């Protein structure tokens, strides 16, 4: 029996582990499928991490190292190159690695910190062939940064998420010509600073309301046809244009990696694609917690670490038998606000609620309703889907509530 098993040794897993340790839990085990701790941060070699948590700008590997050092100093055990195959509701974990073969661990509590993956290209609706030279932005990032191999010389990027923007700069610096970044929506999902320092700095055009309608080439990509789209996101025939290129990168979004959570019978939120959790990040299976990008996709790793610390602390309280929970208050949204994390509140304390909006809105108010009564209201000059928002609900506001409704209003 192990007190606490953490699935995933990235920024979320390491932060959860150290937080649980600081609460007095000693019997902890981190299971990581890669050969290093740090998760996806190892391939995110650009800087911009850590401003919130460390007050300095770090690269991904440097940020990961801060946490890895802590894990090592505290002597928290971890197994690398270890793949978790199954988790049950009774918290039995089946895992495998080369030395031990297949083994099982009974845990008192589990923290899920498996991160996210990129949306598959198969899901994309592009006509034409499927020649070589089409990569997800994250795969290209792995090739360039981990293997030192450039996927191509002339690049078109579909999707303006941050990884796509970062790769536009990265491949340009390595000598490639990035001809355009096409974004289906009329706004970019990436950070404004990345549009500046990854595109504008290198005169790479960002084509909003544009998409790739056809891929050309038999064995290897030889070009793509792009087009402007109308309000209904349908390509406009007359705006079609051909761009020659040997590589198409897809940066069309991330999705939490929850195959294991499903096996444990954990219910998922169909909008976040992550578990339904309370303020402690406890899922609907008692003693199983979730945090970081496996719970909902974050923009900033700093917030991943903060959320994971909540999960780690809560797991510790669960193991020590000190967590008290009351009746659940359900958090509902109006659609303009797409989701909240947590989705429910089960304790009378101040709660930080995170959420995302569905579109770009200007001069709006975030209103929280208890019945007909507005119990919280905050003005926002601008809200965009690419930026996660958060508000703090004070505990006295929660008194007597069964349901709270989050709405974005004029």
């Amino acid at each position, binding site marked *: 029996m192990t007190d606490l098993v953490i699935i995933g040794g990235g920024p979320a897993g390491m932060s959860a582990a150290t937080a649980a340790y600081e609460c007095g839990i000693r019997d902890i085990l981190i299971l990581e499928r890669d050969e290093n701790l740090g998760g996806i941060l190892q391939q995110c070699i650009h*800087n911009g991490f850590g401003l919130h948590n460390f007050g300095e700008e770090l690269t991904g590997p440097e940020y990961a190292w801060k946490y890895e050092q802590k894990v090592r100093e505290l002597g928290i055990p971890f197994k690398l190159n270890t793949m978790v195959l199954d988790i049950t509701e009774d918290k039995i974990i089946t895992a495998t690695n080369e030395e031990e073969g297949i083994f099982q661990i009974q845990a008192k509590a589990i923290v899920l910190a498996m991160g996210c993956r990129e949306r598959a290209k198969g899901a994309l609706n592009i006509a034409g062939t499927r020649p070589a030279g089409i990569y997800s932005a994250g795969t290209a990032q792995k090739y360039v940064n981990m293997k030192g191999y450039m996927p191509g010389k002339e690049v078109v990027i579909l999707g303006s998420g941050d990884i796509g923007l970062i790769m536009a700069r*990265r491949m340009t610096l390595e000598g490639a010509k990035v001809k355009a970044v096409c974004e289906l929506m009329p706004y970019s999902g990436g950070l404004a600073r990345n549009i500046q320092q990854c595109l504008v700095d290198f005169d790479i055009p960002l084509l909003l309301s544009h998409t790739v309608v056809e891929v050309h080439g038999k064995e290897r990509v030889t070009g793509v046809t792009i087009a402007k789209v109308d309000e209904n996101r349908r390509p406009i025939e007359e705006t079609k244009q051909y761009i020659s290129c040997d590589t198409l990168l897809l940066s069309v979004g991330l999705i939490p990696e929850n195959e294991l959570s499903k096996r444990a019978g954990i219910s998922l939120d169909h909008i976040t694609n992550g578990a339904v959790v309370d303020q402690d990040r406890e899922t609907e299976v008692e003693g199983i917690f979730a945090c970081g990008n496996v719970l909902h996709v974050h923009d900033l790793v700093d917030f991943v670490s903060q959320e994971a610390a909540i999960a780690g602390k809560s797991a510790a309280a669960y193991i020590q038998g000190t967590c008290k929970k009351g009746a659940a208050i359900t958090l509902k949204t109006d659609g303009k606000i797409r989701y909240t994390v947590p989705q429910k509140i089960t304790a009378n304390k101040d709660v930080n609620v995170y959420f995302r909006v569905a579109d770009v809105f200007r001069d709006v108010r975030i209103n929280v309703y208890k019945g007909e009564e507005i119990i919280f209201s905050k003005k926002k000059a601008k809200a965009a889907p690419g930026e996660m928002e958060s508000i703090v609900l004070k505990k006295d506001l929660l008194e007597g509530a069964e349901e709270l409704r989050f709405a974005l209003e004029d």
Partner: protein
Amino acid sequence: MKREMTCIGCPMGCALEIELAADGRVLEVKGNTCKRGAKYAETECTDPQRTITTTLRCEDGRMVAVKTDTTIPKDEMFEAMKMIGGTVVKLPVMIGDVLVKDVFGSNVVATQNRS
């Protein structure tokens, strides 16, 4: 003269509005949330600077992530890439180790450990 730009100082990415004198001096900065934004506007208008993050190959063929430990002139980014590109890194390497000296006044340091 007016200039608009996005501050790259932090993920907030504030939209800056800058009033420039005829000789290019910065007269006024608006839209910044913190002091660093004003400073960024000043350098961006007079002597734009960037940090480079890239990778170098180690002697065993693996890659190691690196960065310039200070900013370098923005217009020299490609030149800097050429200067450091051929470097082969001796192992082991620890975060902070200087791998290439004096690249436009900056040192290229490791941001990843490799043993």
